[in-house]
């Protein structure tokens, strides 16, 4: 713990995951701040209002130690508790709404801090405001979701099959998953728009991946996942050993580490057996992308999650294999855990920072791979030690996801911007370009021809974000990431002349259609363009594919619902079950 952080107790998984009958707790570091009762901090405002009971549960007033640190009221006593005392401690914790509030506050703040660390800057929510509301007991419903309209994460509770109340706010991965939706929405606001099957699935898949990988930073749960709660073998010199039988890819994939939302799933009476799914069981195959069953958003997201979780598994198993054995097929448990923690941490950084190089609209998984490879090459040019990029690209390929050929180089990275010599830099101010949307817009407008930006559309700079990142070898990367979008409204009758695409069969000529374009401009530390990742309005193939998808799925006619978007996706998932 540093002066910039403070420690708070959370559940490492959820109340159903126990070690020797006791809750698995962890004290985690969160950014240090002076909290108002709620807890309410500079980015998160917990309001414990229950709309079903129409009651506000009173918040806790935290005590502070003389050095300004919060006194964690839920920390396990330093003296060991016997089984009875521990059970009483756990029961008291679960029955205290203020612990629930602390739990959500700490996980949201941790997830936020993890994003900011990977991106090298502060991140914003998608709404105009600084504090995300969190309602840990929002209402009685077996659902939890991010609602942009309410500037909030809403966690429901429900009566499980044993008449016990199940709190979604007490699940580490559900809280991390919903927080990731909010953070992703802040980084790429248009990803909740109807576009194509990949974009629809990306939010869910990406949030699953972040939730699952985040758990690896809690060593207690990694150990429990590997050992299943059984005591490790101890050597004479104090080493803790684990049998290699528990360390195969299949064995780890079946552990709690890759199948989260345990309690939620178990208590749903078969309605939703796996809250966040066990996507890693979707073994590599190119068949999923072409299978109509995987065109649905949640199923599509599962493919995305499967690729990255399978990558995690391969990298970890491969690093375990490089560790020495102690006797017959026995490994040093602590080193095995260390390797898992390291791989997950590095992969999490790679996965999050890829967002900066993703196009602002109409994302597909292939774009994401190119973005991931490019930004990782920028931050960590030397990847020869563990070959992360090779493993990642190979795994994506095995699921049939291949970088867009025309837009990438031989390494799968976006092409570097080739026309810097023709760009007019001298009409804009370098300092202002680092933070000022107006200045960047002027730059874009002056250079629209060479940038290939269609001036028929309404163009808007959405964000200008300076970023400073450190690679694994201490290499520092300074960049400014600018995001702009373009919107054009037209009648279907104009599609052939304006966008050179055909009107989908059955679409009335008077049907109103909105086409989107946009791009990411990545400026280097000298203010010159490194990459222009663009989705052009006049991209015939993309616009045609998008329109056909929206038309055939009926999404073209749907209005944007910034409250219920994620609630509906989760609810829909609750009504279907995975195939046999």
């Amino acid at each position: 713990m540093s002066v910039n952080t403070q420690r708070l107790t959370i559940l490492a998984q959820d109340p159903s995951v126990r070690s020797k009958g006791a809750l698995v707790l962890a004290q985690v570091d969160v950014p240090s701040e002076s909290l108002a009762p709620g807890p309410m901090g500079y980015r998160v405002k917990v309001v414990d209002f229950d709309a079903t009971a129409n009651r506000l549960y009173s918040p806790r007033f935290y005590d502070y130690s003389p050095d300004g640190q919060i006194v964690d009221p839920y920390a396990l006593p330093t003296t060991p508790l016997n089984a009875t005392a521990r059970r009483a401690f756990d029961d008291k914790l679960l029955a205290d709404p203020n612990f629930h509030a602390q739990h959500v506050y700490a996980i949201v703040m941790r997830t936020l801090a993890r994003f900011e660390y990977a991106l090298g800057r502060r991140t914003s929510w998608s709404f105009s405001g600084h504090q995300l509301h969190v309602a840990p007991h929002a209402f009685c419903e077996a659902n939890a979701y991010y609602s942009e309209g309410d500037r909030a994460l809403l966690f429901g509770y429900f009566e499980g099959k044993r008449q016990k109340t199940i709190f979604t706010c007490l699940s580490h991965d559900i809280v991390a998953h919903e927080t990731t939706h909010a953070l992703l929405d802040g980084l790429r606001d248009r990803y909740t728009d109807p576009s194509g099957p990949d974009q629809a699935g990306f939010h869910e898949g990406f949030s699953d991946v972040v939730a699952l990988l985040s758990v690896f930073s809690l060593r207690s749960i990694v150990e429990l996942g590997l050992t299943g709660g059984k005591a490790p073998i101890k050597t004479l010199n104090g080493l803790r050993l684990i049998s290699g039988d528990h360390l195969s890819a299949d064995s780890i994939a079946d552990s709690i580490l890759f199948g989260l939302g345990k309690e939620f799933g178990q208590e749903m009476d078969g309605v939703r057996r796996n809250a966040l799914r066990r996507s890693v069981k979707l073994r590599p195959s190119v068949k999923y992308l072409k299978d109509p069953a995987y065109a649905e958003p949640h199923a599509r997201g599962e493919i995305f999650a499967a690729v990255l979780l399978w990558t995690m598994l391969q990298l970890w198993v491969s690093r375990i294999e490089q560790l020495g054995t102690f006797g017959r097929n026995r490994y040093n448990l602590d080193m095995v855990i260390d390797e898992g923690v390291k791989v997950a941490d590095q992969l999490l950084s790679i996965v999050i920072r890829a967002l900066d190089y993703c196009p602002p609209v109409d994302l597909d998984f292939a774009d994401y791979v190119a973005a991931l490879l490019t930004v990782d090459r920028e931050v960590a040019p030397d990847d020869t030690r563990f070959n992360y990029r090779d493993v990642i690209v190979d795994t994506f390929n095995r699921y049939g996801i291949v970088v867009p050929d025309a837009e990438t180089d031989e390494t799968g990275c976006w092409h570097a911007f080739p026309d810097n010599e023709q760009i007019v830099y001298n009409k804009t101010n370098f300092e202002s370009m680092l933070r000022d949307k107006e200045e960047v817009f002027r730059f874009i407008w002056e250079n629209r021809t060479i940038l290939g930006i269609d001036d028929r559309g309404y163009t808007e700079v959405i964000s200008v974000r300076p970023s400073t990142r450190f690679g694994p070898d201490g290499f520092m990367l300074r960049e400014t990431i600018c995001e702009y979008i373009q919107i054009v409204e037209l009648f279907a009758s104009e599609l052939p002349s304006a966008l050179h695409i055909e009107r989908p069969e059955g679409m009335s000529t008077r049907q109103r259609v909105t086409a989107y374009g946009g791009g990411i401009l990545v400026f280097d530390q000298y203010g010159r363009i490194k990459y222009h990742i663009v989705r052009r309005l006049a991209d015939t193939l993309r616009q045609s594919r998008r329109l056909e998808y929206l038309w055939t799925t009926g999404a073209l006619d749907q209005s944007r619902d910034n409250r219920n978007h994620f609630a509906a996706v989760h609810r829909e998932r609750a009504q279907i079950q995975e195939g046999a």
Partner: protein
Amino acid sequence: MVTKNVPVEAVIFAYQVGFGDCFLLRFVYADDSQKHILIDFGTTGLPDNIADSQMTTIAQDIATKCAGTLDAVAATHRHADHISGFATKTNGKGSGDIIRALKPKVVLQPWTEDLSLATDATAPKALAHQSLHAHSLGLQSLQTVAESVLAQLTKNRTSFSASLAESIRFIGEDNLANKSAVKNLATMGKKAIYSYHGGPSGLAGILPGVTTLVLGPPTLKQSDTIRKQKSRDPDEFWQLQLRKLSVDERLLGDRDGLFPGHPSSSGGKLPMSARWLAGRLRDARGQQVLEIVRILDKQMNNTSLILLFEAGNKKLLFPGDAQLENWQYALSIEKNRDLLKNVDLYKVGHHGSLNATPKSMWAAFDHRGGVSKKGRLKTVMSTMPGKHGSEASKTEVPRKTLLSALKSESELHSTDTLNRSLLFEEVHIDLR
């Protein structure tokens, strides 16, 4: 009287039932004899200036038109706006009593309505009885959910905004169990047929020269063949909703809420820092309840019969309120897609809602076209604007974009434009 085997004309009487469906389909034969099938008879809202006795008046008109004998009744699904007219009264003067007295030879309903499924093994052998039983229970559960939601709405008038409460009430009431109508339908016919995609219509001997194909609803087994994910046991989902509603009931007004002994304050005395979110949460909860009743509404719609009548060289399509999920199975089969291409009359699904006329099917209708198109498609719609959905969320019924397509590419007959002095709109189809 000898009936020639081939009808020469079909006449559709689309009755003014406001928000509901009631179509009397008459087949006229060369010797002027007639056969009649009544397809649905229900309402959940009559236009303002129409008398409450409208349903009785319609029933009497039907009795007159079929000269006291109704050949068949098809009740596409159990929603009130499709079957409320079949309800009887203890004095024997209900609209359902009048229809019952017409002694229909066959009453055709979807397989989900077979009341004997739970105890009797007379269901078609090709179907899995266990799934049918579960689905039947699911329908009962969802009607119980509707009852429970409406009871809470009545008890806690101030929980939701007036407009939200009205939307919940409208859909909820449509889904209430209408025991009288259900019982009447189950017993009024000489023969009761419960059908499914590819199943029997029971109309072959009743309507000479007319082939009736049942295109929907699919059985659960059929539905699951076209997707990776299987439907959850519907009863499980609705049982969960019932448990949720019972917790709602228990917590409301409970001073301790979820955490006995923990200090809390009630809704009206909240600190300033909590008020904005509390208001939003109350509203979000109301929307959840609305969403639940919408899901149950949709689930019920998807039990709709989809009937295709082929007579002479013409095809008449009556899909009830079938929505996309019901259509998906039928449209996944190429033979059906070909069959539907040259439909001559289309009864617009679900009163013109967003998801009841699949775009791919509409696009494939060969007879669509402008007023000069020879053999132009005829469409008939029973609807009442302003009752269901909202324009802001693009869910209004009838949907503006669909209405525009219906007007420009077909000869549209809609009951909402019917002069209030008229009881029905009449559509003639020459079958020769």
